[in-house]
């Protein structure tokens, strides 16, 4: 603030909101105007510090903010109007909630005296969003706006992160009603004090258990990325020579090309990751929540393993799988303390046992090791497309995925060596996430390679955003694995419904290249495996516009391995003809 604290600046509610965002360090907000937020939009127009990105549909605004948060670790900010603006944001809020992504969503509301009267564009956003937010609040006094914003960021970003909604009735932002503005430095809440470190006694027990293990594995999830503990995880694993598997949300937390990395685990996890889990005698779970897509049948889960579970959210511990040693705390300080205690411990890992364990793991690697059918050189294999993308981008791109087969192929075959580069809707599985996510990342990382890996189904759920890309000059690359089918649905229909393709075929697809060109972008169609690498290189070299890369891939391809329903982690289909 330029004025002395004794004479606070007088601002309207709308101005206070935008100034608060500026003082919070927000550079971009993503949104769409409408009646209830017009005063706020006028306040945006009067300044230039906080830049607004106009999307074409509110859902896209939420995914942009969400992906910015996933890449940067800082909360993304959304501004939408009441009623349909707010309801359109719901899918994106739920997406962020399921993956614990920090986000602040500001929704307009009808005038306070009209609330409850079924006024024009009124919807009970507090009620609607309640089950899918970390917290929400309604502004009832304009004086509360700065502290509400501070509180929203604090809640969204601390502890287990998540989205926070601030619902603001229009009369809280009246341009002619001015209030003294002061942005608080900090917020103290008696009812919310996220835990800062783990319990040392529990950590000691965990270290003792881990050091005595003969067949250990580290199972790490999105919490390691959110908790910025990639370095500590890598150090712990490498110091002890323990295998590491990542969840879908945790990819990149441990280097994907490292020998100790056994791949993703779970429903479409690697054979070796699932086998290593199933046969382990000690599972160290770090910032992962034993999701049903990981555990398969919980009754058959890791029958011989002791479970150590580190998580910042006590409700995630012993929810589906009972932890033998629970540690509640942020992963980074907990892992640091574990490393210190390992240093001091008299126990040493049994190297002979560990060598045997690695021999066994390498044997599993030999058995499957992520292979897929390559005997037909005419058919474009989606796995090969992802491998080639990884090669062309040197494994350094931000890969923003949609949802379906292409998502699993990307997770399996793009080797992420850095955290925050793999951006996908894991928990909610939101089709339409990929393109706006890529836009959110590209905007804040203009020089980075940002690729939206998608399918012809998912891309059409938010394809209107090609227009936003044009408006803001966002040169994202859209890699569409086009097989003419809703691939994952088709795969399930092949496996469980005798190939009755009920509504999984997409007829009347547009010419995606021409469509992209109509927005002023570039389109590249790839039909034959021979032209793949060259054309991908050509596409990645373009830095000033969107390139829509439409790749015609084999519609027969399934994602393997795939866990057998209701089985143990080790029960998998390995191809159309083999199972464990």
């Amino acid at each position, binding site marked *: 603030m330029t004025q002395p604290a004794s004479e606070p600046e007088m601002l309207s509610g709308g101005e206070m909101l935008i100034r608060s965002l500026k003082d919070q360090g927000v550079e971009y907000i993503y949104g769409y105007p409408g009646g209830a937020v017009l005063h706020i939009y006028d306040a945006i127009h009067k300044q230039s510090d906080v830049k607004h990105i106009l999307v074409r549909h509110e859902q896209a605004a939420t995914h942009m903010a969400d992906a910015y948060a996933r890449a940067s670790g800082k909360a993304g900010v959304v501004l939408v109007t009441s009623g349909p603006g707010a309801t359109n944001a719901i899918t994106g809020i739920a997406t962020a909630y399921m993956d614990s992504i920090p986000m602040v969503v500001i929704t307009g509301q009808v005038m306070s005296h009209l609330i409850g009267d079924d006024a024009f564009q009124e919807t009970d956003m*507090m*009620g609607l969003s*309640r*089950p899918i937010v*970390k*917290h*929400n609040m*309604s502004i*009832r006094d304009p004086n509360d706006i700065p502290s509400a914003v501070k509180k929203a960021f604090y*809640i969204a970003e601390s502890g287990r992160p998540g989205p926070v909604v601030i619902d603001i009735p229009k009369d809280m932002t009246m341009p002619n009603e001015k209030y003294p503005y002061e942005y608080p430095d900090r917020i103290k*809440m*008696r*009812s*919310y004090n996220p835990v800062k470190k783990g319990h040392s006694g529990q950590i000691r027990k965990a270290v003792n258990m881990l050091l005595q293990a003969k067949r250990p594995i580290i199972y790490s999830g999105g919490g390691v990325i959110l908790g910025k503990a990639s370095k500590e995880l890598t150090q712990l694993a490498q110091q002890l020579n323990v295998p590491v598997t990542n969840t879908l949300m945790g990819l990149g937390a441990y280097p994907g090309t490292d020998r100790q990395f056994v791949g993703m685990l779970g429903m479409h996890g690697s054979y070796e990751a699932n086998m290593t889990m199933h046969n382990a005698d000690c599972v160290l779970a770090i910032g992962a929540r034993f999701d049903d897509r990981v555990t398969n049948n919980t009754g058959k889960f890791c029958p011989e393993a002791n479970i150590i579970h580190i998580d910042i*959210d*006590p*409700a995630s511990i*012993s*929810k589906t799988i009972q932890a033998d040693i629970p540690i509640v705390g942020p992963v980074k300080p907990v892992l640091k303390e574990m490393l210190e205690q390992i240093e001091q411990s008299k126990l040493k890992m049994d190297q002979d046992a560990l060598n045997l364990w690695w021999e066994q793991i390498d044997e599993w690697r030999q058995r499957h090791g992520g292979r897929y059918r390559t005997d037909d050189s005419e058919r474009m294999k989606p796995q090969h497309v992802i491998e080639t993308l990884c090669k062309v981008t040197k494994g350094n791109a931000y890969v923003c995925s949609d949802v379906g087969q292409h998502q699993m192929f990307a997770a399996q075959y793009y080797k992420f060596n850095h955290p925050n580069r793999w951006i996908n809707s894991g928990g909610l599985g939101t089709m339409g996430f990929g393109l706006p996510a890529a836009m959110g990342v590209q905007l804040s990382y203009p020089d980075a390679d940002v690729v939206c890996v998608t399918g012809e189904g998912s891309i059409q759920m938010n394809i209107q955003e090609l227009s936003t890309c044009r408006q803001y000059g966002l040169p994202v690359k859209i890699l569409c694995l086009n097989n003419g089918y809703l691939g994952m649905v088709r795969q399930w229909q092949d496996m469980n419904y005798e190939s009755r393709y009920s509504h999984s075929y997409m007829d009347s697809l547009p010419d995606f290249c021409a469509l992209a060109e109509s927005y002023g972008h570039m389109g590249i169609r790839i039909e034959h495996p021979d032209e793949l690498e060259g054309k991908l290189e050509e596409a990645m070299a373009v830095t000033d516009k969107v390139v829509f890369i439409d790749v015609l891939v084999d519609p027969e391809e399934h994602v393997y391995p795939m866990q057998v329903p209701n089985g143990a982690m080790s029960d998998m289909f390995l191809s159309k003809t083999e199972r464990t």
Partner: protein
Amino acid sequence: MRHIISVLMENEAGALARVVGLFAQRGYNIESLNVAPTDDETLSRLTLVTKGEDRVIEQITKHLNKLIEVVKLVDLTEGSHIERELMMVKVRATGAQREEVKRTCDIFRGQIIDVTPTTYTIQVTGNEEKVNAFMDALSGATLMEVARTGVAGIARGDKSLSL
């Protein structure tokens, strides 16, 4: 097993909806629910009775604690505690029943708090068991209306749920 969970929460609009919503969303059951202000006007106290396996109860208390407006909570059934519920019951009181109902009421140390030539309104307080027993004892009479407050509870001895 039956649990009585008492929750101190910020006395703010929407806080109750969050608690009730949590139970609906996650499929936990609520047998009774009681909310009222406390001596501290910024706090309200909510007491709920729920049933479930230990694992479910553990999840319930963890999720309640996660709600931003929840300041503190206690599962009273984990220790020695006192529980009370108040019930008002309106009974048809004519003929031979008039005397019979009065006797039952006295046995349960209930109070008749409203009288008409044909009805009694009786107030009974006690734990859930006693209140239920009184209802059973009245089974010969014609019940016109029952109003129960739900259970409130407090720990015995020095322990207290306060800030």
